[in-house]
């Protein structure tokens, strides 16, 4: 008699039936966590693609930049399209340079500062796009287990209440409720673990990218300042 009951109970411990047996709160928690997991992986995929693309663009641009091609020409070709990363920084700096230089800059120091500002702004804007949504990964990674635990606690509470109502502590009665409650924690962990790993990886990647951008900006500003000196001195000498 008893193992008939157990067998019947065991057949109801499938994943779907566990989910369906759960209470409303636990169900909501589980759905939310599954959504979080979906979002996490969407971010992961997106970041993976965009970081890969950014890296490739960086490499490409650096190749072009250091190929000895005229910067004017490069600026002309790049300024016609929307740019990201190093190209954006280069374009911003060149635009500033052009504006100031064509109108006739009076002080090389002011020009240098403006160019640096322009590059900084662009750089921080780019870095922002790289780091966008990494915050939500961090949130999911840290809060996911807690949310799952909350669902578990609620589930266990309700299953204990149910046990008290059924007046039986038979394991076959107790087990499904607890298993169903634990499912919430499991889903929380499933969502949180990739989120934490991805967050760590992508923040490191973003840091690397922005480091590269900074390095480029410094180098470029050095180049520009040399240019400024070269171009302004003849003027000053002329004056």
């Amino acid at each position, binding site marked *: 008699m008893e193992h008939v009951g*157990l067998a019947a109970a065991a057949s*109801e411990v*499938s994943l779907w039936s566990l989910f369906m047996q759960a209470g409303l709160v636990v169900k909501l928690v589980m759905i939310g966590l599954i959504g979080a997991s*979906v979002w996490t*992986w969407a971010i992961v995929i997106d970041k993976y693609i965009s970081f890969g693309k950014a890296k490739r663009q960086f490499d490409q641009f650096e190749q072009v930049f250091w190929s000895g091609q005229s910067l004017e020409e490069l600026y002309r070709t790049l300024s016609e399209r929307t740019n990201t990363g190093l190209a954006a920084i280069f374009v911003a700096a060149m635009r500033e340079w052009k504006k100031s230089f064509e109108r006739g800059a009076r002080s090389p120091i002011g020009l240098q500062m403006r160019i640096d500002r322009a590059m900084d702004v662009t750089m921080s804007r780019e870095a922002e796009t790289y780091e966008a949504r990494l915050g939500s990964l961090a949130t999911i990674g840290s809060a996911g287990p807690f949310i799952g635990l909350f669902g578990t606690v609620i589930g266990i509470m309700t299953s204990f209440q149910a046990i008290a109502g059924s007046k039986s502590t038979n394991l076959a009665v107790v087990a499904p409720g607890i298993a169903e409650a634990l499912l919430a924690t499991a889903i929380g962990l499933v969502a949180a673990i990739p989120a934490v790993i991805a967050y760590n990886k992508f923040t490191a990647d973003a840091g690397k990218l922005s480091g590269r951008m900074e390095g480029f900006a410094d180098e470029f500003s050095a180049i520009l300042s040399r240019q400024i000196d070269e171009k302004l001195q003849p003027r000053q000498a002329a004056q």
Partner: protein
Amino acid sequence: MKVSLGTSLVLHSLVLGLALVSLSAPASFDVADVEALPVDIVPVESITQTQQGDKKAPPSQKPSPKETKNQKIVDNAQNAGENNVDLKTPPTPTTKPQPTETTAAPKPVERPTPTPTPEQNQVKDIVKEETAPKPTEMAALPQPKPEITPPKPEPTPPKPEPTPPKPEAAKPTPAPLQSENTSETGELPQSVPAPASRPQPPKPEPPKEQAKPVEKPAEKPAETKPVTAKAAETAKTDNKATASVKPSDKKEGKQQETAKSSSSMASDFNADQIAALLNKQEASGGGAKRSTQVASRGDTKTIGTGLSSSEIDNVKGQIQGNWALVGGLTGVSEVRVKIRVQLDQSGNIVGEPEVTATGGPEGTRRAVEGSTRRALMKSAPLKNLPAAKYEGEKGWNVLVLNFDPSEFAL
């Protein structure tokens, strides 16, 4: 972002779908079908307070020893049992009758003359009829015969000559049996040719006869049979089995029986007489108290069951109710009274009750003793004593009560 969100959704639905299919229901643990072990908590009374009964019987309300078949009443028997004399020793187990081997009668002087076997058909018929009812161990033996018989054609010549169809021909059967037995034991009465365990001598014979004829008639002509008989005699020492089976080649069981009886008559040794002379009285023990009831659970002897404290209180109360203590005694509070009274089954006092008071001043003690004795006599017969607890060392056949001053009177 939309693309990646879409791929993420697709991946999740894939993974969840797979999980739903593959992780649907974990295999449930095998629960061994172990029956619950009943545990009895055994009170110490089951050792200290026992009633005579059967150790294996189910417990019942009323104690009773094992049912006895012998219903001849023995006066004043205390120990239940079948014995005619009431003994305290446990009954000696009746030993199984040992299968003793009795030796067969010595060989008949006359030589077995095999009857001519012209009527083979008859033989067969008889054989079939008899074999059906008693396929005994002997039946297995006949097989070796055919082998042996052919090699011994030498003795045959003498036998064919005497072949006249006589009832004596039957005799060969007893002879082989004897040969078996004689080899094992000395010579003993002829009357019991059969194995010792069987009381009726005539019965064992038919199977042997049957066994032999069955094979022989089918395989060999009648002439060979006499040969076998002789061969058996000669080969007795060699092969017991073959010998025993062979001789019984004769056809009709009746003839053989008659032949046997005649042979037994011939010997003057009578086993029955000797058996009658032996003392068959078995050493015995056990009580003689009879019981007609089915045994209840109990031990081999009655240690008795003591009165419970509430039952003792009940008795004390009966006595206290009749207790009239004279007032004005000094030192009553130091007196202790002990009553030892013999009772019969109905609670009446048998003999003089022993009432002893201790402690306190002499006069007070005597007064208390007297009043106690009066109270006791007045309250006889004592009521509400459980009959089941009367007997035994702890039973109330002898009732001992102790009173302290607070219990002297109600």
